[in-house]
């Protein structure tokens, strides 16, 4: 099989699985549906492996599949760009997707929408692959919106739940706000670069680096800054950066497997991927990178705080995801794109692991998600416990687990950055380490340690999950341990990405990181003496103290810091603000325009008004037609008199 058909196979195999399960789910049955979809994704994963080998042997590809549309000299195509960045994403996406597919067999076994679910997650895999494999902005946008659609369908999978169908609409609309920016960014690129192809655009980028654009006439701003910020607004929607993060916590209304696949490991990282892909553009605008840095840092820290007070196990992981996406964004801002992708990869493994672990707990607890009703589960679910522990250690950044390497690399890159806002970002990511370790272990202790707090009936039925659930946990735990150790040297320090990522000399941390690199061992040795490690240890210690030893302390804190607690409990009031100002405002304005503009002014005054005017004029005119001969005769004589006078005057 030629490489070209292999490229096609990667997205098309999951698509075929999705269509079969979606259209013929009833005929295929449950087992048939999960077999075809798993087969599709497995094929896709294997093909990705082969392609990865080929790519690292130096065979890149950039070419069209078919021309979608052409207008004048603008051609829009569907096409693939296969380079190290793409294959990295392909591997992450297909591997996590495969794990989630297998896991779903156990998790959704009793759900009546079994086939539909498999169809959706395979469709998602297809869309995500189209997104990462794109060689042009059109297809990028296409995949971008398609993953949004599947996310919408999956958050609302249990469509009778009011919270689920509220959450999916919210997710779609908030993402559309980001897409608005993204679309305009793409539009400006076409208008000023004359193409939608990555290669052409990147080639021309340095030529227009100093161009300006007048958004408000008379005050020119840098074109590149505007383009990059618009593109980043798109990334903010998909990758849930403040203030467009509000949809992600609510997305937990969807079934847990998709929280792991879509809302932790893959789709939400699309923004990170996109900015890395656009590194040749972002490198040309310091202002844009500064914005990226500050927004990422804010998300990293402030979302981590919210993780502390959640009692719903999935919501803790969700806020953790937001915060970790913030870390990746910070890395982007610091021009450390390989580090961002590195963290994206390690995070995909350990966060999918944590979500699936949480799902395993929820499954065992009969869909109970409140950690206050858990405790002591480690005895009943040893595999889930050990894998969750690994996930938590990785998330907290304890060496030698995967998260340590990627997080430390981010912190060092930010420290070396000289952009405006870098000081704030450094503080935020440092403080974030403590908070992350604290909420991760708070969750672990509340769930698995201490006395069991569930009711008798639930406890009697507690048992470890079946192998289709634990196997993916184990398979995800392995890279959560070793991926960082193994990948940091080639991926971050070496020339792994080749020309896929551009970092201009003098731009920030990556170069410093590479200069100070003395191998993995030295990195770890340096790590355990540095501040972040001890912050993480302190976080774990605090969590142990508050949730294992002196369990009354959190309540005292809560009582003392009422105001702070209320602020966090209301998630900084973002939701309330959006609800009132944007959702409410749009409805108010819409009603006003409809009732006043359409009904009163246009219909009332113009349409019916002119009809009335005609009516009234006719009523007047009707009075002239009295029917009396002498009236008509008088008017006739009067008319003749006037005409004759005129005639005489003129003569």
């Amino acid at each position: 099989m030629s490489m070209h058909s292999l490229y096609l196979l990667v997205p098309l195999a999951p698509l075929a699985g999705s269509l079969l399960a979606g259209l013929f789910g009833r005929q295929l049955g449950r087992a048939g549906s999960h077999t075809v979809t798993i087969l599709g994704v497995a094929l896709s994963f294997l093909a990705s492996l082969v392609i990865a080998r080929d790519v690292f042997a130096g065979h890149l590809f950039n070419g069209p599949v078919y021309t979608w549309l052409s207008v004048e000299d603008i051609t829009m195509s569907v096409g693939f760009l296969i380079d190290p960045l793409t294959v990295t994403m392909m591997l992450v996406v297909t591997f996590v997707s495969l794990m989630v597919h297998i896991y779903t067999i156990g998790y959704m076994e009793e759900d009546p929408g079994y086939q539909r679910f498999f169809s959706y997650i395979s469709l998602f895999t297809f869309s995500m692959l189209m997104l990462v494999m794109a060689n042009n902005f059109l297809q990028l946008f296409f995949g971008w919106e398609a993953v949004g659609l599947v996310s919408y369908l999956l958050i609302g999978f249990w469509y009778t739940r009011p919270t689920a169908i509220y959450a999916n609409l919210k997710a779609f609309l908030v993402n559309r706000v980001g897409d608005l920016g993204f679309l305009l960014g793409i539009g400006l690129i076409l208008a000023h670069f004359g193409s939608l192809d990555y290669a052409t655009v990147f080639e021309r980028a340095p030529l227009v680096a100093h161009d300006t654009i007048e958004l408000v006439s008379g005050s020119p701003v840098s074109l590149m800054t505007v383009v990059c910020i618009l593109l980043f607004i798109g990334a903010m929607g998909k990758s849930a950066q403040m203030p467009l993060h509000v949809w992600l916590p609510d997305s937990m209304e969807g079934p847990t497997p998709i929280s792991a696949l879509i809302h932790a490991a893959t789709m939400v990282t699309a923004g990170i991927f996109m900015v890395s892909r656009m590194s040749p553009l972002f490198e040309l605008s310091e202002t844009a990178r500064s914005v990226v840095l500050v927004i990422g840092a804010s998300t990293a820290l402030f979302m981590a705080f919210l993780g502390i007070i959640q009692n719903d196990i999935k919501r803790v992981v969700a806020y953790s995801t937001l915060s970790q996406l913030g870390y990746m964004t910070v890395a982007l801002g610091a021009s450390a794109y390989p580090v961002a992708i590195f963290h994206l990869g390690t995070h995909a493994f350990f966060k999918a692991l944590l979500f699936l672990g949480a799902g395993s707990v929820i499954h065992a607890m009969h869909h109970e998600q409140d950690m206050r009703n858990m405790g002591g589960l480690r005895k009943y679910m040893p595999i889930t416990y050990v894998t969750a522990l690994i996930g938590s250690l990785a998330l907290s950044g304890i060496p030698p687990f995967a998260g340590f390497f990627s997080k430390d690399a981010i912190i060092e890159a930010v420290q070396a950055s000289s952009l405006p806002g870098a000081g704030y970002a450094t503080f935020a990511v440092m403080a974030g380490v403590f908070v992350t370790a604290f909420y991760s272990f708070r969750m672990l202790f509340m769930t698995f340690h201490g006395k069991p707090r569930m009711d008798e009936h639930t406890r009697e039925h507690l048992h470890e999950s079946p192998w289709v659930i634990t196997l993916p946990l184990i398979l995800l735990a392995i890279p959560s341990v070793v991926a960082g150790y193994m990948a940091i040297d080639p991926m971050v320090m070496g020339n792994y990405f080749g020309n896929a990522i551009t970092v201009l000399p003098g731009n920030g941390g990556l170069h410093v990181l590479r200069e100070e690199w003395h191998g993995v061992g030295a990195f770890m040795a340096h790590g355990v003496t540095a501040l972040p490690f001890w912050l993480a240890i302190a976080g774990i210690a605090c969590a142990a103290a508050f949730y294992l030893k002196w369990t009354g302390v959190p309540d005292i804190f809560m009582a003392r810091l009422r105001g702070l607690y209320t602020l966090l409990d209301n998630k900084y009031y973002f939701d309330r603000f959006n609800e009132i100002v944007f959702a409410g405002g749009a409805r108010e304005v819409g009603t006003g325009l409809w009732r006043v503009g359409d009904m009163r002014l246009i219909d009332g005054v113009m349409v019916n008004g002119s009809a009335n005017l005609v009516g009234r004029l006719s009523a007047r005119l009707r009075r002239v037609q009295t029917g009396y001969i002498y009236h008509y005769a008088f008017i006739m004589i009067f008319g003749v008199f006037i005409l004759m006078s005129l005639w005489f005057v003129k003569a």
Partner: protein
Amino acid sequence: MTAHHLLSLAVWLPILAGILVLAFGGEERPGATRWLSLIGAVLGFAVTVPLYLGFSNDTAAMQFVEMATWIPSFNINYHLGIDGISLWFVLLNSFMTILVVIAGWVVIEKRLSQYMAAFLIMSGLINGVFSALDAILFYVFFEAMLIPMYLIIGVWGGPRRVYAAIKFFLYTLLGSLLMLAAFIYLYFEAGGSFEILKFQMLPLPLGVQILIFIAFFLSFAVKVPMWPVHTWLPDAHVEAPTGGSVILAAITLKIGAYGFLRFNLPITPDASHTLSGVMIALSLIAVVYIGLVALVQNDMKKLVAYSSISHMGFVTLGIFMFNALGVEGGLLQMISHGFVSGAMFLCIGVLYDRMHTRQISDYGGVVNTMPRFAAFFMLFAMANAGLPGTSGFIGEFVVTLSAIQVNFWYAALAATTLIFGAAYTLWMYKRVVFGEVANDHVAGLKDINCREALFLAVLAALVLAMGLYPKPLTDTMHASVQQLLEQVSTTKF
């Protein structure tokens, strides 16, 4: 018959079929009436297919031209022809007529033969509008077409049908008298000819151009409809039967935009440039203002009607960008809107036939009882929200790309439809389809039958096909659009 008479067939075959249905169909023979109508509609579409197959992409000249003297004393001719701009509307119109016949199959209980005949006759007349090359012939078709639509709303419509029908009739009649006056003026300027193509070559001073532009504008803006002459459309839609709404949204609205392309731009290019600011402003108001109004509608049909106005805002915006992306984007948006709005109205019709209400609040949880319907409706809702991969995306995308080349803020305002379009469509979908079963009526709903599945599946296939591979459409447009852009960029005085 040879290829020389294809357009005549496209015009007269449906009309003849309509007359036959009137003559031989009737209350007592519903089966025969239906099948006769279907055969007429299918044949009507069949004769338009060779128009596409035999269409030459390389020329901007009129194709399939037919010419015969009609009223020699005024030099009025029966002159038909199509180019890359009008081709798709003839096909779209003839195709949608089939769907309308199927959609009305058992649903229409009173005066079935007259209902079917009205649609068939209207289909022929609309083909006449899109292919007429003589101004008077165009005018006759343009006006005659109003009559069946007026009857469809007035006879088979809802409770306020008479108000809606008269509003529709008066509104759309308003401008057309001025258009006739403009035609007569141009007739004398052209040395006694009503040839539209000759009108396009006339030199005209700017002042005259502006007056003619306004005369045409009044006629076409009402049809599109553009803000602020749009208020007839929601009323007409709400009262019209499903088939009426489908044709109204899918076809008749396009006549307005077609008029701009065929008359305003090439006949009055300088006035078009002078007044483009106004046209752009009205288009953007349509997108944003109407988008917000659509959000708060309680009646599904009204909501989709407002959504149509908002989507048509993209068409007029694209046209007045005076670049290839804009015009072709506008044409794509029109074709897509034909499918998508038609499908949306058919979906609402499916619900209305069962529940006899269009109030959103009367529904909830339809997916529980009608899962197959919900899947189709989801696809069309997403197309209406402009999701890539569906036809609804292309026009909006291309017009936005075109607008940003002219002015960033035009594009920014237009692109708000990403949010508003999704908000009003999906919010409605959520309230109607998702959730627990809201009441006993919803609990008793039956999923779509084969007939309904047929027309929804056909439209679904078209919406996806066009979304995934729109290139064949634009390939036919390039030459004509290029010529149009040359005409509009050449000053006439």
